[in-house]
């Protein structure tokens, strides 16, 4: 900022100088904005600091590129989900650790292949966590959930497909108008998750539709 522009010039009237000052002050009007922080510095000056871009680091942060989808570490029922890495064609934990929690050396975290053709009619793709609990045993008890039953997949709808598993959207990818590139990624989930299956008996109509479904219910994901 150059204060020379508001200093009086030879032969200038006070009114002219004043009007120039008013215009100058107006041009410096500071609009209230969450990114501005004002502080007083030595000598009585006021410094306005604009916060630099800082990435909000949260569970399940999803980033997309032509190389694929990466999802930062997050947990569901205390377990780290798995994702198919299209480079190695192996399904790995998203924190790049093995089943015992030991870091996998010399390998990058898994990257999900993004299939742009598998989008909704209006160009939306959802990255979902899918929980498919193992079926109950003969005694009617469900085995404990493991990371293998919790995977991150691509879906056309936020609630996935009707395959008996529970789907929860982590992020939505809005494709460009021509559907050939990624327009923008919108994060949906910002917290770790708790999964529960709210079970109820199938109605007669539901049994007619799918006779094998003895129990139906709602898959519920809550933040923790």
């Amino acid at each position, binding site marked *: 900022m150059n204060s020379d522009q508001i200093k009086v010039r030879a032969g200038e009237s006070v009114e002219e100088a004043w009007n120039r000052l008013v215009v100058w002050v107006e041009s410096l009007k500071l609009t209230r904005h969450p*990114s501005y922080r004002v502080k007083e510095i030595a000598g009585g000056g006021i410094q306005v600091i604009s916060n630099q871009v800082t990435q909000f680091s949260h569970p399940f942060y999803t980033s997309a590129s032509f190389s694929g989808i990466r999802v930062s570490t997050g947990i569901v029922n205390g377990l780290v989900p798995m994702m198919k890495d299209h480079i190695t064609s192996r399904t790995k934990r998203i924190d790049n650790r093995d089943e015992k929690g030991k870091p996998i050396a010399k390998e990058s975290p898994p990257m999900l292949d993004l299939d742009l053709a598998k989008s909704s009619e209006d160009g939306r793709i959802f990255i979902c966590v899918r929980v498919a609990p193992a079926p109950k045993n003969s005694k009617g008890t469900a085995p404990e959930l493991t990371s293998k039953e919790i995977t991150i997949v691509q879906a056309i709808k936020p609630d996935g497909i009707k395959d008996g598993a529970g789907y929860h*959207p982590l992020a939505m990818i809005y494709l460009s108008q021509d559907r050939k590139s990624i327009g923008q990624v919108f994060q949906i989930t910002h917290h770790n998750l708790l999964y529960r299956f709210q079970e109820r008996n199938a109605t007669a109509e539901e049994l007619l539709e799918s006779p094998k479904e003895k129990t139906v219910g709602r898959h519920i994901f809550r933040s923790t």
Partner: protein
Amino acid sequence: MSSHKIDIPTIPASLWNETMDVIARRLPINFESFHQIWQHPWTVSPFWFEDEKERIKEWRFKVAPGFVNGLHYECDIKSPLASARTIERLEVDGKKVGKEEVVTAWGIESPTMRVDGTRVIGSGSDPTGVSVTESGDLTTTAEAVPKFFQKLGVGKGVQLTGNLTSGVQEVVQEEQKDPRILRAFDIVMRLDRISLRVETGDIEVAAIGGFTQLLSIAVGRSSPANPSPTIYQTSKYVAPPPSNPADLFEGIGDREYDELKVATVFFLSPPETTLDEPLDGSWTPYVRHDLFWNLAYLPATIPTALDSTPITIRTGLAGGIGDAIGNQILSPLNDAYAEAVTRAKARSLEGSFWTV
């Protein structure tokens, strides 16, 4: 002719320039505008908009994308406020969007909304209610001014007190002189859901040669539900009261939506502003958010019909024919009883929101 000397106040150029140096130091020396800062879902950003060519001067706002059950919000706006992406999406099928046509914009397309109407809080506001004590003392009540704005010079407004029996009235005036004016409006998110409704119908009871009214619960909607949340603005949002079970018995249907307030946007006037002055760019906007995260939602479970033991008659009269006639008469009563208990169990399908 006598000369008269007048002292004309002057500002020496040196003093002026020294003053300018001080002003320059005291004013912001460096700031830049950028939009890369992380915004939480539902962040509301008001801004003053001027377009000399179109002769538009108005407050507008944007709401950052917010999701419910993985679906972004939608809003109805006039086409000039829609983003290019919205227009492109709507015109993809060859449809031409009119100049002032109302279009449904998606929250992920950066729609802009104009501020339609505001309410006054504090100085200059109208009472919103009256409280009366047992002794007959009455006091007008009004929306409270947040302390933050009281400190910035907004008055609490005029309060009327009195007594119903004595008729004495008193006016509690403003504490502050020339208080600043505070205006506000609310932004609300609405999500459609199914609702409970009571339907009545006559059934013929042949045995008694007459008709009996049958009540039944219908689960549904009067119009197709929009699975996406929608947002709208109102000068003052009042949350709908919880469903009253008695309403259902009166035949009044359950609400067909659930709502949450997204934010309240306040506008603070400059000092020495009067109530009739317009809301222009000299006012300062402040936002108080009520939503910070994306949401999941589930409606309440649909109540199942009560599995009750029907009332029957076993007398053996007329070789059992009397029992059959009696039970036929009782049958609608049993149905009505079951429905009544079911209704009492679940008076509303009002759902729950939670953050994800």
